[in-house]
């Protein structure tokens, strides 16, 4: 341990970048997944189509996906954000739709009977009931994205991957370990935190 104690600010900056990149990618993904999910929850053919597209994106290896974006978006945070948020679409969309479909039809009927508009029913009944599954989707997406975000360093996206890549270039084991372990800790932290949130939501 020679390098880490002397370079705390650099490590903190990379960790912060990694956090911001991962969280904002999942948030962007969530907004898109919510819109798509609401649109296709009751439209089976549209859902099958959107599921195929997001499935294709999910299967493409991360480095290749980033590489395909570079000719249009260049290097840096932009392709990293676009790549990472398209990655988590499949996970998020599946959970949003499963959650919305899980709302019992007599509950929907009761809401209609009470004179709720489609929008009111969505915001007051369907989304709250689907929330545990949506949170579960966010958890899986975030854990996945935190891991993949290390690759974003290679396209100048910053984050903890930068430290790992530096370690590879300089054959500096400590840097590889610091980058790898911090990423794993961040993923585990959110996994535990969001699992707790999920349990609270199910009970509450």
């Amino acid at each position: 341990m020679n390098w880490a104690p002397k370079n705390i600010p650099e490590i903190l900056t990379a960790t912060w970048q990694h956090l911001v990149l991962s969280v904002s990618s999942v948030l962007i993904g969530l907004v898109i997944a919510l819109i798509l999910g609401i649109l296709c929850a009751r439209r089976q053919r549209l859902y099958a189509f959107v599921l195929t597209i997001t499935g294709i994106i999910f299967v493409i290896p991360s480095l290749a996906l980033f590489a395909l974006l570079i000719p249009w978006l260049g290097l840096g945070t932009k392709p990293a954000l676009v790549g990472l948020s398209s990655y988590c679409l499949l996970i998020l969309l599946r959970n949003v739709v499963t959650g919305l479909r899980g709302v019992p039809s007599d509950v929907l009927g009761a809401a209609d009977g009470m004179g709720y508009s489609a929008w009111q029913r969505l915001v007051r009944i369907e989304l709250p009931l689907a929330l545990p599954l949506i949170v579960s989707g966010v958890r899986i997406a975030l854990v996945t994205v935190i891991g993949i975000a290390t690759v974003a360093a290679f396209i100048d996206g910053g984050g903890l991957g930068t430290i790992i890549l530096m370690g590879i270039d300089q054959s500096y084991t400590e840097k590889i370990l610091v980058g790898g372990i911090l990423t794993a800790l961040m993923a585990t932290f959110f996994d535990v935190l969001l699992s707790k949130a999920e349990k609270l939501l199910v009970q509450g």
Partner: protein
Amino acid sequence: MLVTAFTWIINNQSEFYEALGRHLVMSGVSLAFALMIGLPLAVLIINRGGLAMIVINTINALRTIPSLAILAIMMPLLGIGLWPSIVALTVLALPPILLNSFIGLRDVDPDAVEAATGMGMSRRQILTKIRVPLAAPAMFAGARTAAVQVLAGATLAPFIGGGGLGDFIAVGISMMDMSRLLVGAIPIAILALATEFILGLAEKYFFGERATA
């Protein structure tokens, strides 16, 4: 850009096919190793509660380490080149194979197990004649996930001198040569999609439409 990329492949066929071959060999060998380790290990731990807990928890912890770090850490341990990459990819492929097999073996229909016990089968016989055949779809699903993950991981192998199609992406980014970037990225994407598609069809063919974990 696409045309330039295609022309490059035509003009440098031997280099392209060598990288493609390496990519496939690296992924195939790693997947084979992971299957050879993961499947017996799942069978071995299924009747041993304490050991199973340790193995499953280790595997779950392993899963949070990013693939880039797993590849990178092979460098100080094993050096650079093809073999360190294969070891890293085997480590990457292990979790889905082991976890799916374990869950498949564990969650076999209890009625089937009870019937077998009633017929006087030993625990060992129940494992080989009831659990393993019934868990085959879950095992296959694990192998399918692992295959796609290994192909993605193999893309990162050039970082530790493992070669493969990712080399073209690395060169493309360092020289900002867009067509070279595509020479790597497009075949990698097609390879991953084709693997997923073919294994998905195989799953349906062998095990029917039943959704597996």
